[in-house]
């Protein structure tokens, strides 16, 4: 298991063009990031393409990493997640909304999350428990499935204006919980 400092060092190496550092970062993080791609895209070929796009972006932007305020794993996960969401949305745009109905029950926490002791879970996971289940699910769906307000409104069968108010309130509540120590 690599530490945060190890990963930062690899990114710094990549910033100066060190390809060995790229390989080291890939070895240390690609399984996690590929898992994210598979989770978001639910399609192996697309997940491989997305992982490639994400690592190319990371390589090309490594010299700018130190200027952003992210911890290294957050940066890698965010780049990967955004890349996957973009692909997912492009796919949805191609297919229309045909696949909408089959996706519904997908965003609940996996069995792994339930197995992690509450004390070791990320704060956001605990804070999500303070939300009504459908609101926690809406946040997960937005983050992990890239759902738009319109899609969330359709899934939860509420008007578009309502969903935004509804989700903003949930996010505000989440923010209050997250900022408590």
């Amino acid at each position, binding site marked *: 298991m690599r530490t945060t400092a190890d990963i930062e060092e690899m990114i710094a190496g990549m910033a100066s063009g060190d390809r060995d550092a790229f390989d080291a970062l890939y070895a240390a993080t690609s399984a996690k990031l590929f898992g994210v791609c598979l*989770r978001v895209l639910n399609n192996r070929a697309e997940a491989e393409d997305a992982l490639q796009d994400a690592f190319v972006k990371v390589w090309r932007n490594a010299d700018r990493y130190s200027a952003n305020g992210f911890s290294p794993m957050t940066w890698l996960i965010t780049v990967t997640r955004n890349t996957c969401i973009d692909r997912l949305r492009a796919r949805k745009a191609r297919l229309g909304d045909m696949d909408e109905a089959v996706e519904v029950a997908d965003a609940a926490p996996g069995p*792994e999350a339930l197995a992690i002791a509450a004390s070791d879970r990320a704060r956001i996971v605990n804070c999500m428990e303070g939300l009504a289940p459908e609101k926690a699910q809406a946040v997960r769906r937005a983050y992990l499935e890239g759902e738009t307000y319109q899609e969330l409104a359709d899934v939860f069968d509420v008007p578009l204006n309502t969903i935004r108010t509804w989700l903003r309130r949930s996010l505000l509540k989440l923010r209050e919980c997250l900022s408590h120590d």
Partner: protein
Amino acid sequence: MTDDIDPDEELMLAAEYALGLLAPEEAAAFEQLMARDADFREEYEAWAENLADLTDDIAPVTPPPALLNQIRAAAFGTAAVAAPQPEEVEPPATAPVFETATAQGRGLLQRLGLLPAVGGGLLAALVALWVIDATIGPSLALPTATATLVSEDESLVVEIAYTDDGEWLEFNRRTGRAPEGQDLQLWLINGDRAPISLGVLPAAQTGQLRVPEDYRQLLHGGNCAISVEPLGGSPTGAPTGEVVAIAPIVWET
């Protein structure tokens, strides 16, 4: 539930931006807000950190071994495709290394290394720019900058090109026009500065806009945006209408 605390609308934009819930023009506006105000940037960063933890329960899956070489080829611009050696570990020693000299951008998006999850057309354009940027060799004499601005529904596509040290920025309106009775205005956005007008886009399909000398340097690391404005352009000197397209300015050296 009428006694809920009234959400701080602007602050909640950071969460919505991190979740990719904002429309492209809202996302672009929020990026400008972040560029000007560190509080919003920090708010976004805090959300991104917390939301990334939602992936904690996602089990790692080792990608297929052959993928690394393919990714290396894409990242380093080397021709690994010509000699597929899936298990190869060392990168080719003689490969050119020009790719690290490209993309001197310092715009917010590029600084963050992030492209927001926004609508398809704009993203397709951004992806296309990545590809172009990754495949151009170091053969051109003068650095040339390009940007392709695409509105969300792809009804407006404007390409711009600029050669370093030149006075004129060329535009090519591939498709689309201003709404009846309005004009399209081109803006240069760079870091913390207020958007700088590059002028109203003439109705012609192609043409040139003069870039004042003081602003030429800002094309490095900047973004271009197009807003819909009253006839003759924004009366205030800042964008007043909807920002319909935004794209990074990409330098090819």
